[in-house]
C-alpha cells in the first residue's frame, strides 16, 4: 500500500494504482474528468488529455515536482506523492485548453444530438470551456454512416477516444471497425463497409463519451431528459441482463447498460437486450436509476430518500461533506 495526497486528501491505495483511480476512490470534485479512459476496457486512456493533473511532489524519496502536468489515467502513484487536481489553477487552465482543442472540430449540434443531456463533452465544456470558439476555419465534416443496422455513426462529433475500437477488440472476437487515416482526417469506420453483427457490438454506444455513436432504434425518439431511467433485469443467456430502461410512460424507448458514478457501464449488455426487448413486459423493473441531482435528467425524476442516502454514490456524500454547517440556534437561558 502507498500513501498519496490528492487535493489535500490523503488516501492509501495498492501499489500500481493510477492517479485517476486513486482520485476515484476519494470521489467527488477531486476526480479528474476522463474522456478516453475506461476502467472496464484494457489499454484505454492517454488519448484525450483531459485528466491532466499537477504532481507537486513525485514521491517521499524524491519530493521534486514533476516538470510537466501528467495524465492521471496512465501515471501510477508512488508513496508520498502529492497531486493537485481541482485546486490547481494551472490544471484548470490546461483542461480549458484541452476542451478547446476537443471542440475545434466538434459541430456543436447539441440541439439535434441524441446524446445531449448525458454527454460528457457537454459537461466538460460547461465546466472547463469557454462560451465561444476562437476557431474560424471550416470544421472537418464527414458523411453520416451506418455501423450495422442498429448503430448510427456521426463522425463529425467524434473526439477519437478509441473506446469503441477497444470494445470491438476486447468484447467481440472479431473486430471489423477501427480508426482509418491519420491526424486531422482520422475517422472511425468499418473495414470496407463491413457490418458489425456481433452480439456485444451495441456496447460501443454506451462507451462513446459523445454523440458519435448513437442507438438507431432511439434516434430522435425523445430527448434524454423526458425519459425516466429505471433499473431493470431479465434472464439473458448471453449477458447479465441488468440494464437501465429509459421509459416514457409505459413505453421503453431505449435500453442501456447501467452506469456507475464515473459514467462507466457496470455490466456490458448484449444486443438482444439492447435492441430487441422494447416492451415493459420483457423486464422486471426494480427501481428508478440513481441520477445525479445536478443532471438535467433529474428533472421530474424521483427516488426514494434511502436510495439517495445509502447508495454508494459519491456526489451525495460529497455534498453532505461540503455543506456548510449552520450555527446552532441561540437559546436564551
Amino acid at each position, binding site marked *: 500500500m502507498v500513501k498519496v495526497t490528492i487535493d489535500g486528501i490523503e488516501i492509501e491505495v495498492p501499489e500500481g494504482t493510477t492517479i485517476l483511480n486513486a482520485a476515484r476512490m476519494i470521489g467527488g470534485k477531486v476526480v479528474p474528468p476522463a474522456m478516453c479512459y475506461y476502467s472496464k476496457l484494457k489499454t484505454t486512456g492517454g488519448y484525450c488529455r483531459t485528466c491532466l493533473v499537477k504532481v507537486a511532489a513525485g514521491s517521499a524519496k524524491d519530493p521534486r515536482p514533476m516538470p510537466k502536468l501528467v495524465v492521471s489515467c496512465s501515471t501510477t502513484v508512488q508513496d508520498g506523492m502529492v497531486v493537485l487536481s481541482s485546486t490547481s489553477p494551472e490544471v484548470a487552465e490546461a483542461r480549458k485548453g484541452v476542451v478547446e482543442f476537443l471542440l475545434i472540430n466538434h459541430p456543436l449540434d447539441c440541439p*439535434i444530438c441524441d446524446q445531449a443531456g448525458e454527454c460528457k463533452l457537454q459537461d466538460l465544456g460547461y465546466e472547463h470551456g469557454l462560451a*465561444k*470558439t*476562437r*476557431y474560424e476555419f471550416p*470544421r472537418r*465534416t464527414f458523411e453520416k454512416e451506418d455501423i450495422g443496422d442498429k448503430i448510427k455513426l456521426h463522425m463529425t462529433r467524434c473526439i477519437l477516444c478509441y473506446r469503441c475500437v477497444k470494445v470491438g477488440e476486447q468484447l467481440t472476437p472479431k473486430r471489423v471497425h477501427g480508426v482509418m487515416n491519420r491526424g486531422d482526417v482520422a475517422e472511425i469506420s468499418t473495414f470496407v463497409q463491413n457490418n458489425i453483427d456481433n452480439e456485444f457490438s451495441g456496447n460501443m454506444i454506451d462507451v462513446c463519451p459523445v454523440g458519435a455513436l448513437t442507438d438507431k432504434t432511439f434516434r430522435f425518439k425523445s430527448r434524454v*431528459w*423526458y425519459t425516466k431511467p429505471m433499473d431493470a433485469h431479465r434472464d439473458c443467456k448471453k449477458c447479465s441482463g441488468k440494464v437501465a430502461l429509459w421509459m416514457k410512460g409505459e413505453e421503453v424507448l431505449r435500453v442501456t447498460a447501467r452506469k456507475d458514478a464515473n459514467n462507466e457501464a457496470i455490466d456490458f449488455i448484449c444486443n438482444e437486450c439492447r435492441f430487441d426487448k422494447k416492451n415493459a413486459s420483457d423486464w422486471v423493473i426494480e427501481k428508478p436509476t440513481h441520477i445525479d441531482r445536478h443532471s438535467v435528467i433529474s428533472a421530474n425524476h424521483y427516488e426514494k430518500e434511502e436510495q439517495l442516502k445509502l447508495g454508494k454514490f459519491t456526489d451525495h456524500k460529497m455534498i453532505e461533506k461540503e455543506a456548510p454547517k449552520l450555527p446552532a440556534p441561540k437559546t436564551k437561558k
Partner: protein
Amino acid sequence: MQSLTTRSKVASNKKMTFVEKLYLPAILGGMRITLNHFFKKKVTISYPEQTRPMAPVYRGQHVLKRDENGAERCTACGLCAVACPAEAITMTAAERKPGEEALYREEKYASVYEINMLRCIFCGLCEEACPKEAIFLTDRIIDSGYLRKSFIFGKDILVDPLDKPIDVSVRETKETREFKTHPEFAHNKLNTKSLK
C-alpha cells in the same frame, strides 16, 4: 363592528320630505351626469378597427420562425419545453429526409409541435431558451374560442406563414443581433457542408 373602509354610511330611516317624494330633483341630477358624459372623451375604442398601441415587448401568440431561405428553424431540441414552467409545450421530433432541405434547416425537425394556450402563461422563457432563434412571442392576441381543443395550437397556426412573415425584429435585443453576426460564434451559422 369596525368598518373596513371609510366609504360606508350609516343608513337612516328618516322620513322623506314632499319635494324628495316627487323624485324630480334626483332624476334631473342623474340625467345631468349622463348628459355630461356625451361631451366627454370616450374611454373605449371600437376594437377590431382600432387598436391600442402595444409595447414592443408585449408577449402574445407564439410564432415558429423560418430562416432566410424559408426553412423551419426549430429542431425539436426540447429546451423550450423543459424551460416552460406551465408545461404547455409538447413536441415530437422526426428526421429530415433527403430532398426536404428547403423545408427544414437541420437534420432533425419537429413533426408535431403543440402549445396549449390555456396552460401558457406567456412568460417568454421558451423564447429565451431557444438556441436556434426559432420561437418568438409576438404582439398578437390569442382569439377566444368555445372549445378547449381549439386552444391547442399546432404547427399549422404557429409556423410563420411563408407569404407574409411576422416581423419579430423589435424583439431581438442588440445583444442577439451582435451574437448572430459575431465571427467567434460562427457555429451558430448554417454550415451547408455538414448538412449533406
